[in-house]
């Protein structure tokens, strides 16, 4: 049974926890603004890039097209790039990525495929090291937040390219949390190799209305130059989305934690006051009954 002093200590400790969570919430909110701006600023580049790729891809024939565009044709070895956070305390963010990874690996293995994992971010790697450790071929840390440089991205893209050239992968998928809004993030699986070609109606209209493009030096060279850039861009946008999602998830989680701490403080304070009054009443009764006995 906790006495008054214990209760008082408890209240104090919950109060300091509340201070920390509310500070973390503010920090996440401020960073989220920046991350969201970054993610939005990166969209025009990615959109234009995929527009050009789409128009080129529709012309390329499957036999002669570079493997980076269409994959190797086989579906045997699959590299799964998983984006998680380096730090915890962000609600279901890491948990949902870890669960999705586990599910995806199981599904692919069930289809008899070989799966390799490239982990970006510490949390998912640590969580999956025990059960899927032998599948992890490479990992990266510290590539996220509001300052992601293109050089970091290139180091990831290089791994993928090297494995493709060495025939160590047929398909490359990326698993990340897509930022939808500050309260919703969605675990998304998209394909890096082969490139996802989206046939939009707008693109069709565009190509119909304008004259055919001239390519300098020629289509194949342009495509060869463009595909590695596109790979990096895809990874870059995914990482920006993931960073924004992480901060949004942390903000929501810390907001909840702050509110829960508030509730707990209220309950403990009520309990404390009740105990205090009970103690006073007991003392009074003792004094009165003592006086009456005289």
């Amino acid at each position: 049974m906790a006495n008054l002093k214990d209760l008082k200590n408890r209240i104090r400790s919950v109060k300091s926890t509340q201070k920390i969570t509310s500070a973390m919430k503010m920090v996440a909110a401020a960073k989220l603004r920046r991350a969201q701006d970054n993610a939005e600023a990166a969209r025009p580049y990615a959109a234009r890039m995929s527009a050009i790729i789409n128009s080129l891809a529709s012309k390329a024939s499957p036999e002669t097209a570079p493997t980076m565009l269409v994959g190797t044709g086989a579906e045997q070895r699959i590299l799964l790039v998983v984006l998680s956070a380096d730090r915890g305390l962000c609600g279901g963010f890491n948990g949902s990525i870890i669960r999705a990874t586990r599910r995806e690996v199981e599904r692919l293995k069930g289809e008899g495929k070989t799966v390799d994992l490239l982990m970006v971010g510490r949390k998912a790697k640590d969580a999956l090291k025990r059960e899927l450790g032998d599948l992890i071929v490479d990992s990266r840390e510290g590539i996220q937040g509001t300052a992601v440089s293109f050089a970091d991205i290139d180091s990831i893209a290089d791994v993928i390219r090297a494995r493709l050239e060495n025939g160590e992968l047929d398909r490359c998928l990326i698993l990340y949390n897509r930022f939808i809004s500050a309260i919703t993030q969605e675990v998304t699986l998209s394909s890096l190799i082969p490139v996802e070609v989206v046939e939009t109606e707008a693109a069709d209209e565009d190509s119909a209305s304008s004259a055919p493009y001239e390519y300098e030096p020629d289509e194949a060279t342009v495509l060869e130059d463009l595909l590695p850039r596109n790979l990096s861009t895809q990874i870059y946008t995914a990482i920006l989305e993931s960073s924004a999602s992480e901060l949004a998830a942390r903000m929501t989680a810390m907001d909840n934690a702050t509110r829960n701490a508030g509730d707990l403080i209220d309950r403990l304070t009520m309990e404390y006051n009740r105990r205090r009054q009970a103690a006073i009443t007991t003392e009074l009764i003792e004094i009165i009954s003592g006086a009456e006995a005289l």
Partner: protein
Amino acid sequence: MAETTAFELVTPARVMMAVDASMVVIPGSLGLFGAMPRHAPTISTLQRGVVEVYVNGNVNSRIMVDGGIADVTEDKCVILAERAVTLDNTNRSDIESQRQTADTNGNTRELEFLDAVLAAL
């Protein structure tokens, strides 16, 4: 007013420049070419070099790009570049400090690019 082409320079981080230009000189991988209004639709890879943007017949701005791709249509000219540095009112010491960082990180591509920027300034 003369015809213009809508010029945009887009890097992964942001839309760096968007102006209506009378001509854009682009360092294509087959050599420099000028994109003016009603240019034939062209997609070209770029080499490292300087993009010159002409507004009303005068050079309005010069931007160093480290390769990339140009998408030219009759009324638009979009350049996608991973690295780009504007050469107007850019501080030499800023570039030099960036160069220092690239040097310590062992980032050779960035280093070469910044050297080219310094040479062109």
